C-alpha cells in the first residue's frame, strides 16, 4: 500500500476521447501489501478504462471476498461498486446485468473466491455467457486468510509453511473455454503492456470475457528455498510463533516481446516461464485453444495472451430473449397488466 498518493500524477496525460482524465478512473488508496500484484492489475484496469474512454459512472465493479476482492475500492472511484460475499460475485453480477443490460460489468475475484467456494457460480455464469469482464487475480493462495493453498496452486509447489501441494491445479482458463466463455485470456500482473490491451478487449467483448491474471502474493506465496532475506523473515516467524512481519516489496514487472518466453523470478526466488504468442487464427477454435494451452503446459511454460475468442456468442439476454430496454427502466405502464386483466383472470378461475 502507499500512504501518500502524489497529488499530481501523470500530468502529461491529456484527457481521453470522452474528456475524462486518468484520475477520473482512479479509486481509493490501496490497503494491500506493498508490491502486491493485485495493485498492478488495478492500475491496468484504470489505464484500460481510461484508454477506452468509458464513462466511469457507466461501469459497475463487483467482487467477492479476499485481498483481490477488496481491490475494486482502489480503482474507478466514480463507479458504483459491490463487494459481496465470498465466492458469490457471479450471481450478483448476473442479477445486476439482468436489471440493466446497458451498463458495463467488471467483476474482480481471487483464485480462492473463484476456484474454491465460488466454483459452481463461476462455471454457471460462464455457461450462461453473462456479458461481463471477469478478472481473477490469481496468486495460488488465500491471501487474506494468510496463505493457505488455493485450488489453482501448482501441484508440487511448496507453501509458506513448507508443505507440498499434492492436489491437481485447476486451470480456470481451460474451464472457461470448455464451458462456453466468449473471450478467454491469461496474463501476468507485472506485464502492463499485455494486460491493458487484454482488459480493453475483454471490456469490449459482448458475453463472458474471462482473464486469469497471475498475480504474485508477496507475502504468502513463498517457499522455503528462498533468498537469504526471506529466510530471515521465516525464522522470525518460527521463533516468535506469530506471523506478523510483512517486508515491503516492489511489484514485479515483466515486459517481453511476442513469441518469446520470459522467465520471471517471483519474490521467493521461484521461477515461472511466460510465453506470449502472437494472435493466431486458431483462437476462435475451442479445441485448438485448449490444445495450445495444454501444449505449452506440457513444456512447462504458461501461455499468455488471448487464448480463445468467439465474437458471436449469444449472451444471457439473447438466451432469455429479454427486451432491449433495461428492465430497471420499465415503469408501471410497461409492466402492470391492470385491473381489467385481473378481472378476466378471476373469471377464468370460476
Amino acid at each position, binding site marked *: 500500500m502507499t500512504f501518500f498518493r502524489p497529488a499530481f500524477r501523470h500530468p502529461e496525460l491529456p484527457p481521453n476521447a470522452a474528456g475524462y482524465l486518468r484520475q477520473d478512473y482512479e479509486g481509493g488508496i490501496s490497503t494491500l501489501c506493498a508490491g502486491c500484484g493485485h495493485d498492478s492489475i488495478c492500475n491496468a484496469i484504470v489505464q484500460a478504462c481510461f484508454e477506452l474512454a468509458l464513462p*466511469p*459512472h*457507466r461501469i*459497475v465493479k*463487483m467482487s467477492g471476498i479476499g485481498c483481490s476482492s477488496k481491490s*475494486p*475500492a482502489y480503482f474507478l*472511484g*466514480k*463507479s*458504483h*461498486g*459491490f*463487494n*459481496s*460475499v465470498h465466492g*458469490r460475485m*457471479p*450471481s*450478483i*453480477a*448476473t*442479477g*445486476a*446485468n*439482468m*436489471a*440493466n443490460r*446497458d*451498463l458495463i460489468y467488471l467483476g474482480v475475484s481471487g483464485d480462492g473466491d473463484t476456484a474454491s467456494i465460488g466454483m*459452481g*457460480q463461476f*462455471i*454457471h455464469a460462464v455457461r*450462461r455467457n453473462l456479458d461481463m469482464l471477469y478478472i481473477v487475480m490469481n496468486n495460488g493462495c488465500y491471501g487474506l486468510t494468510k496463505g493457505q493453498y488455493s485450488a489453482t496452486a501448482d501441484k508440487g509447489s511448496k507453501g509458506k509453511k513448507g508443505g507440498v501441494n499434492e492436489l491437481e491445479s485447476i486451470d480456470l482458463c481451460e474451464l472457461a473455454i470448455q464451458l462456453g466463455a466468449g473471450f478467454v485470456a491469461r496474463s501476468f500482473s507485472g506485464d502492463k503492456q499485455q494486460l491493458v490491451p487484454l482488459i480493453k478487449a475483454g471490456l469490449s467483448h459482448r458475453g463472458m470475457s474471462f482473464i486469469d491474471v497471475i498475480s504474485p502474493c508477496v507475502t504468502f506465496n513463498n517457499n522455503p528455498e528462498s533468498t537469504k532475506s526471506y529466510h530471515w523473515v521465516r525464522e522470525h516467524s518460527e521463533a516468535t510463533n506469530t506471523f506478523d512481519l510483512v517486508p515491503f516489496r516492489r511489484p514485479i514487472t515483466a515486459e517481453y516481446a511476442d513469441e518469446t518466453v520470459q522467465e520471471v523470478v517471483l519474490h521467493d526466488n521461484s521461477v515461472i516461464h511466460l510465453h506470449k504468442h502472437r494472435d493466431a487464427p486458431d483462437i476462435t477454435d475451442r479445441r485448438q485453444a485448449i490444445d495450445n494451452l495444454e501444449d505449452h503446459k506440457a513444456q512447462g511454460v504458461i501461455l499468455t495472451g488471448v487464448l480463445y475468442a468467439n465474437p458471436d456468442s449469444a449472451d*444471457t*439476454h439473447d438466451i*432469455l*430473449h*429479454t*427486451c*432491449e430496454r433495461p*428492465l*430497471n427502466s*420499465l*415503469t*408501471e405502464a*410497461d*409492466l*402492470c*397488466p*391492470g*385491473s381489467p*386483466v*385481473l*378481472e378476466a*383472470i*378471476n373469471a377464468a*378461475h*370460476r
Partner: protein
Amino acid sequence: MKQLESVNDFVVRFATVNGSGSASANNLFAKAVFRMGVPVSPKNIFPSNIQGLPTWYEVRVNERGHVGRRGDVDMVVAINGQTMRQDYDGLVPGGYFVYDSSRPLPEDFRRDDVTAIGVPLTTICNEAFDNVRMRPLLKNIIYVGALAALLDMEFEVLADSLRKQFRKNPALAEPNIRALELGFSYARDHHAGACKLTVRRSDRVGDAVMMDGNSATALGAIFAGATVVGWYPITPSTSIIEAFGRFAEQFRTEDNTGRLKAAIVQAEDELAAIGIVIGASWNGARAFTATSGPGISLMSEFLGLAYFAEIPAVLIDVQRAGPSTGMPTRTQQSDLLTCAYASHGDTKHPLLFPCDPRECFEMTADAFDLAERLQTPVIVMSDLDLGMNDHYGPPLAWDENRQYDRGKVLNAAQLDALAARWGRYRDTDGDGICSRTYPGTHPDKGVYFTRGTSRDEYSAYSEDGDTYVRNMERLRLKWETVKRLLPLARIKMTNAEARLGVVFYGSTTPAAYEAIELLHRRGIAVNSMRIRAFPFQQEVLDFVLAHELVFVIEQNRDGQMRTLLINEGSLPAARLVPIASYDGLPVASRFLTRALEEALAERGVILPKTAPDQGGTR
C-alpha cells in the same frame, strides 16, 4: 346402520395413484361443486415421487363456506388397490365406500357401518373404449360421473366443464363426455338412493374464485412489476415461477419485438438464486425468488448481506414439512424462526403471512413496495397447502390508481439539487432509512460502494466501533419503521369481556375460524387475531395482553409464532398456549376443536357437548 345424511356438507376422498391422470378428474369434480354455487375446498395429498404411489384428493363441500380441511372422511372413492384397506378402515361410521366392482370386494371388507357402493369402472371402461392408452384417463372420468349421480349433481355442469377443457380438441372431449355419462348412468341405474349425501345448487359462491396460492403469488409479482427472477426448482414453490413465466409470456411480451419484459434465470442453486435477486434489486429492478425450507437455509448468508448492506429483496417461502428434506410434499408452517432471524449476527427480517390466494396476490405485490421502501429483504410466508391447492376465496383485486412505491431512490436531478453532502447510509429524516441511487444515474454524484462489511455514513469501509454501533442502532430504528408499514393484524373482538383469545395466521385461518365459530356456538366467549406480519405492531401485543389465555394455533412443533411473540413483544409466556398441528396435512377444524376443548378442560373450562353439525360423527 345410520347412514350419513347431508346436503352440501361432507368430505369425499379420492384414493388414487399418482401419474394415473386422476388429479384432473378429481379437480373436475371439485370445480363442478363450485360451479353449482357451493363452497368447496380440495386438498391434494401427493407423494414425493412421479408415478405409482398412493395419492389422495380430499374434497370438502360446505355450504356455510368453511373451506378449511375438516378432518374425517365421509365418503371414499377407492381407486388404489394399495391403500384400499386403509381407506376402508378410515371411513367414519355411516360413511360410503365407492369402489371398482370389476373385481369383488375382498372378503374381509365387511364393516356394517359403511355403505359399499360398487361401480365396475374397469369393465365399463374396457367395454366402451378401444384405445388402450386412453383407458386409465377415461376410467377416472367414469368414477366422476358415477359420483355425480350418487350425489345428485347436475350432469350438465360437469359435461360443460369437460367441453370447456377440451375446447381446442373436441375429438378428446367426446370420449370424456361419454365416460362421464357411462359412470353417471350406471350409478343412477344401480345405486339410486344409496347415498344420502347431496350436492344441491346454491348461491353461496358469489364472485368467489378457485385458485391456487402460487398462481396468485405469481400474479402479484407480475402486477407489482417484478422483472428479474432468480430461482431453483423445489417443491412446492416451483409452480410460482412456472406461473410467472406463463403470465410473463402473456402480459409481458414486447409488442414490437416479441421479446420479454422480464428475465427469468434458472440458477444453479438457491445461493445463486438469491444472489441474482440481490444483484438485480441493487441495480434498480424489482426482483424475487421463490423457494422452500432447504432453499431458505442455503440463502441464509446472502440474506444477512442484504440486511446489512440494505438491499431490497423479495422472497417467497412456500413452506413444507421440515426439518431437512422432511416430507417434501406435505405442508407446514415451520420456517418462521429461520426466516425471521436468517443469517449470523444481529439480523431480522420482516415476514408477511397471507391466508388465501387473494392475500398471496396482495402481499406479494406489497412485498415489493415494502422491500424497496425499507431496503431490506421481505419474506412472504406461504405454504404447500396454500400454494399448491386450489382455494375457494374472494377474487383478486388491483387498485387502478395504485403506484409502485420505489422507496428512497435519488435520480440525477435530485442529486443535483442536494444541498448537503450525500451519504448512502446517512439517515436524514429519522426513520432509519437512507436514500440510495442506482448505478449509472449521474456522472459525478451519488456513487457509493456497497459491502457486507462495516462502513460509515458515506459508505467508506470502517472498523471503528462507534461507527459500527451507530449504524446498527440506525438499523434498529429502521425496524421500528418496519412495524409502521406492515399490514395490521385482523383482530375480531366479538366480546369485549372475553378472557380467551385465539391467534393464528396463514393457511390455518379457515380451520381456525371454523373452530372459533363452534366455540361461540357453545357459548364460549373468545376473541381472535389473525397475524399478518412480523415484526408485530402494538395492537398485536395489546391483544395478547388483553386476554387471560391466548391460544396460538400453528402448524409446527415448536410454536414458532408463539416464540416470536414472546421474544419480540416481551409477552408473558405462560399466557400463550401453543396448539400445534404439524403432521404435514393441512390443519383440520375438527382437530382444532378437540385440541381447544382439551386445552380448556386442562384449565378447568368444560364445554357443553353439542353434536357437531357437519357431516360425519366423530
